[in-house]
């Protein structure tokens, strides 16, 4: 990675024909010896350990009830009041920042790709140079509306942009273009499937307050320390500055870490199904901030809210919430209410705990006001209807459809988790395969193969056509080959030897001499041969050692090189074994 220091001198940036455009020259800013505005103070290790001790208890409690976690004081090892047993519940809301996968940034024509050389996708506009103006990318609106429709939200035909103002080196203009009082999407809900303590699942509807468009900031890279505080210098990479985000705010409807994780996963699934975001948490294209408080069950008023950030997976989010529930309940139970204050805490993945980043002294004043550089965003009903009509099948609809095919809840969850898997599965069905065996094959050997060799499902389809898998399944179903032979043949199909199905798999199986022997006469001949060659065992069987049946099956299979139709083989074998000696 190369960073440039701008220092005090003016750095010129190339532009074409006088119009601000993508820069070819890379530049960055080096902020030397800058201390943090909000110093990061970690929780003492004592606090951290104390809370950790209770994580296991909370985690088990969290999964029990679907309507809320039960965390009682008895689970707390530090509790000194065994008498009154208060039942607590957590109230959780999530702000999800979804990076919209547009080709260019929200307000300029720079590429919005991830992982480019630092400060290679920048221009005067996204650097906030004097005189530059934002121009809204139409695809940002399209993707935002699609997401809103998928969340069953009301699309505001007339919304506007506002400026959210604060100073930070990664924020080029000193304000973020966002939507404040009139967001693009209002109201809505998302269906979340939460695994419960048993093998089952429960379904909950989580309300969506709003979803609005905004631009991302740049990224600070600190030299010599993990945060701005204590670092020798900090570098800014503005590649991400101006990348479009959709911020989705949930109602405080969530109660457990498991629900929150399921909510995040469903949100990501929806965005991926729509093709509006890749939802990659590790790359930051989906970020979840959690707002969490606890209160005695039955009380309507909310407790003191804490914000948690810095979780780079849904699993981490679940663990962070579980940790925080225990920390807060512990503090309240221990009479240390003062430890639960309105603040932002960060999740430390290494130490598995949250720690305080900054205390919020009242509400930060962002001095929002309408962005005068952008006209009101006006959409027509026809535009929204057109997008509604173009919506692909959503995860919830897919789940309903798959359940309708008679698949188990588990199968449905696995197949509907990923739109590409679902698409492949659907193609296998479309080629004539019955649902259950198709599901077994796709979720079993095929998925394992994809994971093992890190193959995407679209690439897989290019190698093993869904129709080829469907043909193999039909060969098993009609008894042409056994399931065992099927597994043996699969590698050839994965190597593309099954062609496009439609007879090519049968030809392959026949060419390799793998077709099952189902002809009773042929099987009888083999059986008779085996029995004749093993007269001792036959006698022993007839004297009562019926366990030897397996031995005979094995011998016949060996003799037939595995091609004997197991069902037919068993029938004939039993017939012969039962027959009196001739």
């Amino acid at each position, binding site marked *: 990675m190369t960073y440039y220091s*701008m220092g*005090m*001198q*003016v*750095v*010129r*940036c*190339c*532009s074409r*024909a*006088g*119009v*601000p455009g993508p*820069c070819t020259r890379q530049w960055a*800013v080096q*902020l030397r*010896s*800058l*201390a*943090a*505005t909000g110093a990061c103070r970690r929780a003492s290790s004592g606090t951290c350990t104390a809370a950790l001790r209770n994580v296991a208890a909370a985690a088990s409690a969290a999964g029990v009830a679907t309507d809320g976690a039960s965390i009682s004081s008895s689970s707390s090892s530090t509790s000194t009041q065994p008498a009154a047993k208060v039942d607590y519940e957590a109230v959780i809301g999530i702000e999800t920042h979804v990076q919209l996968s547009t080709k260019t940034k929200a307000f300029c024509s720079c590429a919005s790709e991830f992982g480019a050389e630092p400060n290679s996708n920048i221009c*005067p506009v996204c*650097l*906030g*140079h*004097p*005189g*530059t*103006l*934002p*121009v*809204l990318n139409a695809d940002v609106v399209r993707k935002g509306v699609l997401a809103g429709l998928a969340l069953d939200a009301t699309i505001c035909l007339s919304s506007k942009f506002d*400026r959210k*103002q604060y*100073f930070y*080196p990664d924020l*080029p*203009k*000193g*304000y973020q273009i966002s939507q404040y009082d009139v967001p693009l999407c209002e109201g809505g809900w998302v269906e979340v499937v939460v695994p419960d303590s048993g093998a089952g699942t429960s379904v909950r509807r989580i309300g969506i307050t709003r979803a609005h468009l905004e631009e991302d900031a740049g990224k600070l890279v600190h030299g010599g320390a993990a945060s*701005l505080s204590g670092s020798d210098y900090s570098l*800014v990479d503005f590649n991400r500055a101006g990348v479009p985000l959709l911020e989705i705010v949930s109602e405080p409807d969530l109660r457990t870490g498991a629900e929150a994780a399921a909510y995040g996963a469903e949100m990501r699934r929806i965005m991926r199904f729509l093709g509006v975001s890749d939802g990659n948490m590790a790359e930051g294209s989906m970020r979840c901030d959690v707002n969490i408080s606890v209160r005695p069950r039955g009380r309507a008023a909310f407790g003191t809210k804490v914000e948690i950030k810095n979780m780079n997976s849904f699993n981490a989010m679940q663990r962070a919430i579980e940790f925080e529930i225990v920390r807060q309940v512990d503090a309240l139970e221990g009479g240390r209410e003062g430890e639960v204050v309105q603040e932002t805490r960060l999740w430390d993945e290494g130490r598995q705990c949250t720690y305080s980043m900054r205390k919020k002294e009242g*509400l930060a*004043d962002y*001095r929002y*006001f309408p962005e*005068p*550089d*952008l*006209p009101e965003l006006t959409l027509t009903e026809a535009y929204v209807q057109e997008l509604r009509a173009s919506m692909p099948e959503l995860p919830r609809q897919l789940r309903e459809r798959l359940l309708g095919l008679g698949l188990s809840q588990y199968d449905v969850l696995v197949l509907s988790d990923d739109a590409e898997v679902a698409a492949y599965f659907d193609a296998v069905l479309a080629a004539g395969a019955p649902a259950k065996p198709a599901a077994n094959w796709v979720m079993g050997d095929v998925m394992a193969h994809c994971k093992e060799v890190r193959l995407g499902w679209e690439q897989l389809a290019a190698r093993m056509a869904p129709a080829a898998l469907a043909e193999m399944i039909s060969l098993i179903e009609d008894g042409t080959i056994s399931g065992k032979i099927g597994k043996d043949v699969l590698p050839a199909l994965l190597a593309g030897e099954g062609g496009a199905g439609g007879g090519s798999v049968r030809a392959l199986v026949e060419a390799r001499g793998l077709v099952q022997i189902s002809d009773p006469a042929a099987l009888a001949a083999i059986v008779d041969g085996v029995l004749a060659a093993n007269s001792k065992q036959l006698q022993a069987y007839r004297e009562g050692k019926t366990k030897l049946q397996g031995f005979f099956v094995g011998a016949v299979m060996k003799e037939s090189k595995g091609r004997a139709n197991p069902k037919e083989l068993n029938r004939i074998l039993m017939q012969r074994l039962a027959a009196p000696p001739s």
Partner: protein
Amino acid sequence: MNPPHTLQSYTEMRVLRTTNIRAKPADMRLSLVCGSLHGPLHAARDQVARRGTSATELTTAYLRQLHSAETQLQCFLAVDDEYALRQAALIDSRLAQGEDVGPLAGVPIAVKDNLCTQGLQTTAGSRGLHGFVPTYDATAVARLRAAGAVVLGKTNMDEFGMGSSCENSGYQPTFNPWDTKHVPGGSSGGSAAAVAAKQCIAALGSDTGGSIRQPASFCGVVGVKPTYGRVSRNGLVAYASSLDCVGPIAQSVADAAAVLTVIAGSDLADATCSQKPVEDYTAGLLPLDNLSSKPLAFKRLALIQEACGEGVDAGVTAALAGAVRHLQELGAEVEQVSLPSFAAGLPAYYVIALSEASSNLSRYDGVRFGQRGAANELKNMYASSRHSGLGSEVARRILMGTYALSAGYYDAYYKRAQQVRTLVRREMNMALGRFDALLCPAAPTTAYRVGEKLCDPLSMYKGDLMTVNLNLAGLPAVCLPCGFSGQAAGNALPVGMQLIGRAFGEADLLKLAHIYEQTSGVVTILPSVFIESASAKHD
């Protein structure tokens, strides 16, 4: 080298003509100028197009005049002779190859320093942007260049447009060519003074609350504040985004119209720029000899009552009254109209402008460009960069704007100001439904003395009374000379009249202004700077 178009000959010609008009208003044919439109821009481009002179000769002549007047006036923050001559040479070589170079071929133009010029320092008059060289041209500048204009340099201004006298420049004051003890107005004072002193043929200015019109009035030149959205703001260093307009300052209405025609029009880089097609604003301008004796017959004009009362200098009132009489002579009906919200516009303007400014100026944090203050802590780095980079007037305005947008004050200030804005707009549009144009002075006074209002910001703010309502309403206006004040006392200073038109009605407005200008014979004397430089030459 003696370019056929000389400053003196043009001025003399103009004096001759206006004298004739004064003597015999009915016999306008006497002052006929070959049917071509009036103004040095038209004369120059015709000469260049006919190859009577070259862009290089023209540029050289203007650079000479620029430097000779510059010591007294300090209109420019950056002049790059080589840069200008390279552009001129390029135009000449293209002309030599028979190319159509464009409607402003070879015309030397100055650009206000808040318009980005690729490769030429742009500071918006701020120390904080010292050394900042933009990587792109503002759309208006790019269009001037594409039309063949030669950019001579960047003109002085009040820092970020915040001021009405050019005294708030982070670098230098500019002086009024009519009397160098007086200010040229602001914030486009450098542009207006440079045009008046003929350091350039025309200039670009910007107008947020009167910054083109008031200096045009103080310097006796023509300034056009177009409809909001008529000219792209791309590349204009923002002061108040919902009010900022780029417009021309020139020596004649026809010249201003020619520049506006070039710079106006939709721009993909500015979402607030109108898609309306642009007219050729010079097309409707008739040469003097083509005018009838009552060219303004059936025109209904109205004098804004609230702009003519208390607080307006007697000399300004008298000049305007003379202008009204002349308009009536030309056949126009001139009434009075009352706009009750007129006075409420000024405080509303300041709340909105400063709120937006407090936000727009956040980017001058020392992180990515401009000057960075030294500090060992982030907050101190911001403070140091902004304290050393931004002047006291800018700091004052940022503080006021920040206050107005703060939680708890937003409704009382910003929101209320927007309501007043709606009221002002409605009232002005209603009046313009009844009248073809409204008129009022461009400033309540003539150019005041340097330093006179420097310690009294409030009185300087009050000077914007005549101009800010238009920005709130987004309407176009032309400011042109309508007489002199203090002539008897021997220190005559020009008075400007503001003609206000309907949204996107620039063509009609310019026609009206052109007829007035062609027949009124107002500017008959030279700015003192010429008298001084002429006497200096004879030494």
